């Protein structure tokens, strides 16, 4: 939609623009505040944090706390920073996102283009899975992981995230493919393409926007997860969020806010990166079907 342009006089139009920009900038500043505090604090020295103003820029910016958070800070009895946990998270997030996205795409494909009696019920049941409070499944999940021999492993964690991500990925792809013309599927079928060929050659290449939305959504959710991480992983294999929580609590008598903040920024970097780089496609993807309307 193109916004209605004001047809009033030029002067009043300029005032309107001014108000709009001012409002947006003020709101943006408020939204940025926590990130700003995290960033500036991470560049400050402890003395400056204690004495100074939370909102002030660092007087003498230093990267020390960043190095410390990455490679030296103590978590429990080991003092190797958070770098190992960073890779743990990557090892968990990448397969979990890929698997859940691929499965979601296939499910969405079946539920829209290869319908069978009861497909709505199946979809409804899968969708409801999005809404289950995860605290309720910890214990039985632990048991199941134990039976599968996946307890306390990264693959177990990947499995858990795939299981509870399926509802969302299926929803996204289902809504997107719902709007994909059936005639294309018919045409491909008459051209001799089979089930997987149609998916691979016709649907998937056109699924860019929804893949972006799904990947962003899954990536942020899994990267940020704490509950499953703390329950189904341990020690050196913990994901980033668990390590960050330990680090922040692993304070000596003096809370090293700057190191905590630097570590928090490290933990936030991948998701921030994903949102900033792909944010434009996110809205586009939402338009393309993740949101109706």
């Amino acid at each position, binding site marked *: 939609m193109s916004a209605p342009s004001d047809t009033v006089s030029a002067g009043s139009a300029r005032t309107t623009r001014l108000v709009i920009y001012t409002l947006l900038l003020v709101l943006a500043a408020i939204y940025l505040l926590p990130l700003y505090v995290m960033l500036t604090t991470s560049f400050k020295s402890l003395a400056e944090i204690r004495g100074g103003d939370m909102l002030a820029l660092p007087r003498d910016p230093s990267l020390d706390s960043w190095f410390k958070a990455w490679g030296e800070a103590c978590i429990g009895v080991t003092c190797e920073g958070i770098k190992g946990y960073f890779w743990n998270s990557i090892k968990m997030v990448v397969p979990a996102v890929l698997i859940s996205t691929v499965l979601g795409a296939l499910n969405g494909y079946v539920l829209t283009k290869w319908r069978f009696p009861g497909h709505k019920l199946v979809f409804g049941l899968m969708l409801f899975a999005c809404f289950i409070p995860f605290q309720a499944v910890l214990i039985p999940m632990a048991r199941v992981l134990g039976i599968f021999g996946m307890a306390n492993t990264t693959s177990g964690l990947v499995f858990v995230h795939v299981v509870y991500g399926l509802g969302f990925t299926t929803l996204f792809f289902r809504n997107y493919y719902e709007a994909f013309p059936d005639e294309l599927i*018919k*045409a491909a079928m*008459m051209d*001799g393409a089979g089930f997987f060929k149609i998916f691979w050659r016709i649907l998937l290449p056109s699924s860019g926007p929804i893949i972006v939305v799904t990947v962003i959504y899954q990536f942020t959710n899994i990267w940020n997860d704490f509950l499953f991480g703390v329950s189904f992983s341990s020690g050196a294999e913990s994901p980033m969020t668990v390590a960050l929580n330990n680090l922040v609590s692993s304070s000596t008598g003096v809370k090293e806010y700057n190191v905590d903040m630097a570590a928090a920024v490290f933990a936030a970097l991948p998701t921030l990166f994903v949102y900033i780089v792909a944010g434009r496609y996110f809205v586009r993807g939402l338009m393309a079907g993740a949101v109706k309307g």
Partner: protein
Amino acid sequence: MSFLEIKNLSKKIGNNEVLKNINIELEKGGFLVLVGPSGCGKSTLLNAVAGLMPLTSGEIIVDGQVINDLHPSKRDIAMVFQSYALYPNMTVEENIGFALEMRGVEKAERAEAIRNVAKVLQIEHLLDRRPSQLSGGQRQRVAMGRALVRQPRVFLFDEPLSNLDAKLRVEMRAEIKSLHHNTDATIIYVTHDQIEAMTLATKIVVLKEGAIQQVGTPAEIYNRPANLFVADFMGSPAMNMLKGKIVSTSGVRQISIFDGSAVVAIPSSVTTDLVEGREVILGLRPEGITDSGLVDPTADAIARIDADVVLVEPTGSDTFVTARLQGTTFTARVRADVTIAPKERFTFVFNLDKAVVFDPTSGERLL
């Protein structure tokens, strides 16, 4: 025996019978047009032939082979869709070649076939483009190319021209016709546009609510519609339906119309004995009602009737006039240069050679 045969075909969706006992035959090289209002089941029938929709009962036979249970891709049938259904992620070349690729045709052979088709359709310069970069008419050609390249036994067209503007539609219509002429392909074509049906078909099937109303050549359908529905549906402006009653004037039976304001001869298309007092409907196409300068000199039976002009619509070549008499309106087609204006009284000439008569209760044409 016919090349394509549809026998006792029925289709139910839930409790709703969308196709009722359809029987159609088509010779090789024939051009069958399925026509009817939306929701009449014509697209369903096409999908059934294509194999995109399972049948409830009946058989579809192509060249002596029952194809009911074959997968769409194995029926050797190609289809052009209303939306063209071009694969958005593929180039024109890939779109046309996709079916061949799926059949495992060699790359070189494929390229050769694509080039030939592109030449026929004059889209050689578009081969590297993607569908989004094409105009509507170009897309249409690509969609046809995709069907042509397979050299199938039967082509199916699902309202292929409905998304084009008026001028392009006429052009493409002509092109499809010449394509049919040149390739001698067997075609089933769905449309709701009766002009397309008339111009293209060797055989027209008129459908209504899942049942066949009439099968025939375009001329048969137009001139001798089987019932009120067909008569009303085919032709534009629609056929005039005038309520009439059989009267006897000095021993000769005639039809009194316009509430008795006019009495005309019983058309020659009717051989049934019509008893006096019977109610009928007299059907006469607009071109059967003209000004006196346009009277067919060979006509056997004509009648001159004065009526009030309500509306005048010049089309350039002719002028359509709506007139009213005794509360009944009708449309006439007069010469473009006749001076005529609303609110005037004008003398219309009714050519009863072209008229047909229907039974008002059953709607069937009286023979």
